[in-house]
């Protein structure tokens, strides 16, 4: 197992180098322009634009810029944002807590809802509970988050005045009052994202369970007189969870990448919001850093998923 992990880690290195090159090449060749923020502003004449371009190092050909960027990257330097001229790593560190507090919590809640609901839906197939859960699941993943988000804002903020829809990232949780405030400002974005995650996962859990329920080993377990609860929980569930765990693990990088649409709607200053704004502003160092870190996470969590496979399924052995 140790050797396997080591081997996988070594393979990951060239993969990431290739990814970094592709990311940079795509950004360099794309029409995004750091000076687009000045748009049609005639107050920033061509000479000034040229000066700014030079001061950002954009006068050099992009392969050279890539080598410089990559050399800094392997030394742990993600560069400076073109917009705020502050270190990209600082911006990420500043925003990660917001993303985790909203997108991360939503993901956990989604998983916690999906497991039991999916399980019950499968065991009590076509029951009222299953019908209701299935209906909600379909609504959940067929309504886009920008729609549910705006709907919640109009109901709970505009009409009822119960919840704020402008996320305050400066709120410090010091006492019960500020904690409640944090809860209040997080409910809507977490609900929107959590429902979506739960909907997708519920369907997976349900179908995996259904696949395993009629199998021979389940009949064996029942015939040797095990209680139904034990059959479901320690036999069916464990086996059904194998692909679900992979799915959950592969979903974790997405948590760190933030939720672009939902963060934008609720003004949660998270990673997703930063990424989409950086793309609009042509803030290449920020885009490159976020996308690269995302690929690192994807590669790592693929490995984690594979390792978990072996843990959950004793038949799988890596050598």
């Amino acid at each position, binding site marked *: 197992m140790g050797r396997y992990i080591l081997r996988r880690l070594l393979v990951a290195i060239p993969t990431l180098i290739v990814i970094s090159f592709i990311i940079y090449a795509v950004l360099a060749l794309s*029409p995004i*322009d750091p*000076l*687009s*923020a*000045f*748009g*049609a*502003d*005639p*107050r*920033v*004449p*061509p*000479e*000034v*634009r040229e*000066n*700014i371009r*030079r*001061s*950002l190092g954009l006068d050099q050909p992009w392969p050279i810029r890539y080598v410089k960027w990559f050399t800094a990257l392997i030394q742990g330097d993600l560069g*400076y*944002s073109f*917009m*705020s*001229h*502050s270190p990209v790593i600082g*911006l990420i560190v*500043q*925003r990660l807590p917001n993303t985790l507090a909203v997108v991360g919590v939503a993901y956990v809640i989604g998983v916690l809802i999906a497991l039991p609901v999916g399980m019950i839906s499968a065991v009590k197939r076509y029951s009222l509970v299953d019908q209701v859960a299935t209906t909600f699941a379909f609504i959940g993943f067929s309504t886009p988050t920008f729609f549910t988000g*705006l709907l919640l*804002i109009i109901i709970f*903020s*505009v009409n009822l*005045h119960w919840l*704020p*829809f*402008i996320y*305050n*990232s*400066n709120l410090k949780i010091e006492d019960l009052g500020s904690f409640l405030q944090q809860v209040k400002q997080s409910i809507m974005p977490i609900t929107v994202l959590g429902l979506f995650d739960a909907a997708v996962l519920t369907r997976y859990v349900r179908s995996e369970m259904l696949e395993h329920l009629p199998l021979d080993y389940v009949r064996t377990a029942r015939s040797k007189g095990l209680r139904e609860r034990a059959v479901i929980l320690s036999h069916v569930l464990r086996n059904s969870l194998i692909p679900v765990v992979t799915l959950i693990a592969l979903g974790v990088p997405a948590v760190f990448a933030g939720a672009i649409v939902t963060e*934008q*709607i*609720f*003004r949660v*200053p998270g990673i997703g*919001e*930063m990424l989409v*704004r950086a793309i609009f*502003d042509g803030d290449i160092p920020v885009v490159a850093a976020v996308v690269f870190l995302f690929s690192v996470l994807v590669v790592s969590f693929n490995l984690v998923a594979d390792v978990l496979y072996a843990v959950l399924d004793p038949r799988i052995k890596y050598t």
Partner: protein
Amino acid sequence: MLTLTMAACGQQGTSTATTAPSAAPAASAAPTAAPVTRGQGGDLKILYWQPPTILNQHQATGTKDADAARLVLEPLASWNPEGKPVANGLASEIPTVANGGVSADFTTVTWKLRTGVKWSDGTAFSADDVVFTYQYMKDPKSAVTTSDYVDGIKSVVAKDANTVVVTYDKPNPFFYQFGVSGSGAILQKAQFGAFVGEKAKDAPGNLRPIGTGPYVVKDFKPGDTVLYEINPNYRDANKPFFKTVTFKGGGDAATAARAVFQTGDVDYAWNLQVEANILSPMSKASTVGELFTVYGASIERLLFNFANPDPALGDKRAEPDTKHPFLTDLAVRRALAMATDRGTMAKELYGDGLSGKSTCNLITAPPDLVSKNTDSLDVCKYDIAAANAELDKAGWVKGADGIRAKGGVKLHVLYRTTVNALRQKEQDIVKAGWKQIGVDVELASVPAGTFFTNTSPDGANHFFADVEMYTNSGDPDPTALLASGWGTENIAQKSNTWQKGNYARYSNADFDKIIADLKKETDTAKRAALVIAANDHLVKNVVIVNLINRTFATSGRAKTLKGVNPTPWDSEMWNIADWSK
């Protein structure tokens, strides 16, 4: 020096609360009469849907940055809504020709600075900081976005600790160019001294500037929120009213409008670019918030090419000694102007006053420079029949294809602008009108980045088209705008690498004379008359077709918020020290 705005979307204006008659600019926004005490108010909540990323006007990439920095970094003086300088900054009085502060030939300006002003860190402010700021802006390696404001300056010298003398290379009728409005924000020498030139971008002060303004930065998360608290060393002991300010950025304009009009979560929401059919009812039904628009000199207009852009001419293409085959005919220009439906454009595309209103004038602000002579002109009225009659009279005859021609020249127009959903709709409206008078219109659009360079043949400067359209904004003194736009000496051509501003290659002795007089005239009333004459000349002779006066700001504020007095020449935050509740 064509504009003052950082133009998040290119706008300018005179203040008019939408409910107030336009004859009374800023009527609703007069400073409060009741005396206020410092820090009496709580937290002021400001919402910008574009978040600030840097707090230094000179490094700003947009209005959001310049506005957020304006609470901290102050200029020498500001522009009020009427386009007059007011001494609410570091200068103790406004220099004029009358008080001897400005030389009669408009070359030197002597600024007297306030005494006893302290930076927020407690050190003394002096003329050295002003001189330093000039040097910082002047260094091309600093790559400041405000460098236009130090262009044409010979020197900025500290005569003594509280006197600064600005000397221009040549007489400059816009002698308030340096130091007035956010573009003239003064930096602290001690903080930025080591960060001139290439290192300018790395200055820690860009994120946490030490200023002389009413507030200091308590916490700044680039791309998200700025928290401010009162500058303990602010010179006015009674101001500012609000103890803290939360400047939140991000999200979208539509929900920002909801926050100020429906939930009242914020006191001020900037630049509400929301479709009129959503914004209008929302603001009208609001009990907590109020929409206001500010108009300035930001004009969307059509420019005619007086030179011949025919590619067959090769190197001579669109050079000033070529002559446009039909746009040099006044009758054609007049007909095109009369067939341009700017009313529909304003109504359908600019929300009937929410983001712009139709205009036939080029100079729409300050108020005393606005011509009242053009409204009655036939070229300012949409009249297809009259336009057709004009062309018939001039001998342009419709062919079998419905396109007019004369002497083998067909009225085929290549009409270029930037890629922008709104502009493409404007093009459609213009094309529909011109089609009705037998003019064949070919529409073209190029990305803004290409359009506004002097290196691309598709750029506005090269003007290798017959008609082009974009927005121009003027300073409170429009001399530079008029001279560079239509003066003979400023014709854009190959020999000056299209760096000059007269893209239309218009050349007219009468117009040049007006400009020459304007450059010398010191009397305010006579200057206004000359500006109006120049405006009327361009409109009457249809050198340009002005379409829309775009708003400088369309923002929302809480009804309880007093003292907001927006000006099209400066940041919306210019007088935040006077705001109260």
